């Protein structure tokens, strides 16, 4: 991983190979490491052939949903006479996730090259990299990289001397988790409030500025130059023999109560148990793991048994009751009040709800209130039923899945750690005193 630790011998560093190397952030340093050879190659190919290679490689979106990237690109029809756009999702706000930040601050040119190849492949002359407003270091690094790339003729009207136009710009966010949702992001780029849009129409039909648009995560795009240079079969060396649906390497951010937090890159199918205890050093001295959330705070909580039985790929995590999500591994140990942390997660979603949908606006607020009441010692057993009922009403009924995401830790928490809730309810610190008028 290179930063903040040296890579562990069991890591497979493709994207993270040059993390922590100051020189790699510059154009010269990047070229020395093989930078922009993939773009040169891609610009000499037909866009459709690039899409085919990416499709064959099995690369799937690393932003959370895991949609096959090549298939997403194939929805775009270059030459339809309309302006096309690529939006790179660098909003990275999913609690537990901080991998795109490392890609941008250590290897900005890897992202720029991936964006340029992606733009050309989908027939877009313009790409916006939407970076969350708080990531000032990333914004500086990517803007400096863009400046170098334009000055060197890599980008612009005559990209790498091929006569093709590739423009890439940074669009700075201004503080809103929801702008990571792709249609909210498009609104934000257009200078609007970041409210998600109702789909359909899907972005490939009517996206940013009502034109065909593709949205891809930073890590997804950063993987593309490697695939173009080395081919689809090369990428397929990283998969479980029995699961061809998850291919390649994946960056995981690890945080919470664990010895060695940080970013780690491992191939699809890596055993999660080895990952947690060997690579990340296991629990803090004298503590035990209690619960693991492996894919950012929006995915179901795992028990330690489920986590230890998981194989790290899209299907492997589903088989153990959760999802790969964004790859943000959150570790919670036995010294924590788990219900308090679930309440804190709910507060996060209540704060970030864009408030368009009633179920989400009201549901996130009520969920937070009830959970905080339980944590304060004023909960009742009916509260758990109420929470599950609210969660039911928040799932699958709204414009975007933020609402579902708020319900997820609550439902999985009550299902798998009901005893923790009940202990707080039984322990009632004090009885609520009715207000006297």
């Amino acid at each position, binding site marked *: 991983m290179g930063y903040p630790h040296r890579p562990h011998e069991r890591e497979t560093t493709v994207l993270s190979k040059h993390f922590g190397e100051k020189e790699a952030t510059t154009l010269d340093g990047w070229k020395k490491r093989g930078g922009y050879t993939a773009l040169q190659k891609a610009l000499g190919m037909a866009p459709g052939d690039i899409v085919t290679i990416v499709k064959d490689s099995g690369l799937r979106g690393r932003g959370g949903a895991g949609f096959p990237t090549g298939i997403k690109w194939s929805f775009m029809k270059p030459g339809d006479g309309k302006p096309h756009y690529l939006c790179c999702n660098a909003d990275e706000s999913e609690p537990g996730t901080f991998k795109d930040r490392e890609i941008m601050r250590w290897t900005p040119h890897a992202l720029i090259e991936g964006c340029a190849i992606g733009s050309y492949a989908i027939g877009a002359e313009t790409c916006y990299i939407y970076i969350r407003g708080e990531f000032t270091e990333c914004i500086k690094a990517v803007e400096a990289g863009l400046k170098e790339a334009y000055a060197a003729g890599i980008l612009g009207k005559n990209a790498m001397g091929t006569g093709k136009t590739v423009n890439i710009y940074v669009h700075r966010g201004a503080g809103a988790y929801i702008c990571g949702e792709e249609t909210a992001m498009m609104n934000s*780029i257009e200078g609007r409030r970041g409210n998600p849009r109702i789909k359909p129409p899907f972005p490939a039909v009517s996206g940013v*500025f009502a034109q065909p648009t593709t949205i891809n995560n930073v890590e997804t795009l950063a993987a593309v130059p490697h695939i173009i240079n080395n081919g689809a079969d090369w990428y397929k060396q990283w998969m479980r023999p029995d699961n061809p649906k998850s291919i390649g390497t994946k960056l995981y951010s690890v945080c919470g109560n664990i010895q060695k937090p940080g970013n780690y890159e491992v191939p699809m199918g890596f055993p999660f148990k080895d990952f947690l205890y060997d690579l990340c050093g296991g629990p803090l001295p004298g503590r035990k793991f209690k619960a693991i959330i492996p894919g950012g705070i929006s995915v179901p909580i795992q028990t330690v048994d489920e986590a230890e039985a998981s194989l790290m790929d899209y299907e492997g995590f589903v088989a153990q009751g959760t999802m790969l999500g964004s790859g943000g591994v959150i570790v919670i140990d036995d010294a924590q009040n788990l219900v308090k942390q679930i309440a804190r997660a709910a507060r996060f979603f209540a704060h970030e709800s864009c408030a368009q949908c009633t179920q989400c606006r009201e549901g996130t607020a009520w969920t937070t209130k009830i959970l905080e009441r339980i944590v304060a010692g004023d909960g009742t057993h009916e509260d758990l039923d109420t929470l599950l009922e609210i969660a039911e009403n928040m799932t699958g009924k709204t414009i975007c899945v933020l609402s579902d995401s708020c319900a997820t830790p609550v439902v999985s928490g009550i299902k798998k750690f009901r005893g923790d809730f009940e202990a707080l309810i039984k322990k009632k610190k004090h009885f609520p005193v009715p207000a006297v008028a």
Partner: protein
Amino acid sequence: MSARDGGRERYVPVFTADSARRKELDDVLSRYPTKMAALLPALWMIQHEHGWVSEDGMAEVAQVLELTPAYVKGVVTFYTMYHQHPVGTHFIQVCTTSPCNVCGAEAVVDAFLKHTGCQELGQTSPDGKYTVIEVECLGACGFATPIMINEDFIESVTPETVPDVLAGLK
């Protein structure tokens, strides 16, 4: 910087003809097919010049981008990073979302309140130097507790290092 109400100082426009900011805005406008798309960048420029986005600032942006002030205000209020009031010289944001919370982020918040003399979250210290707020995930959860002071990140802050962090501010 003008006071919020009463004793208003005269607003100094940011996008006057031939100014550096006007040039910067023109450059930004060339990147998008609509004028409205320059709204977020224009608001950032206002905040960088004045420290916050006042009603006058919103009115100026509205005029330059041919939007209504009400529309601009609707956008400003959606995003948490635009300050709608003046803030302390050092605007301190401490992440307390679950991943940082399990690593003790709340104690870091308390330490900042104590050492800055801020009475409460969101209030500016009597000397005008500090404002402390809790913030949702800063995208640096492996470096608990990360904080932001104005535009700079500081990682791995603990209650013990808070005095040093403050002493290091200009």
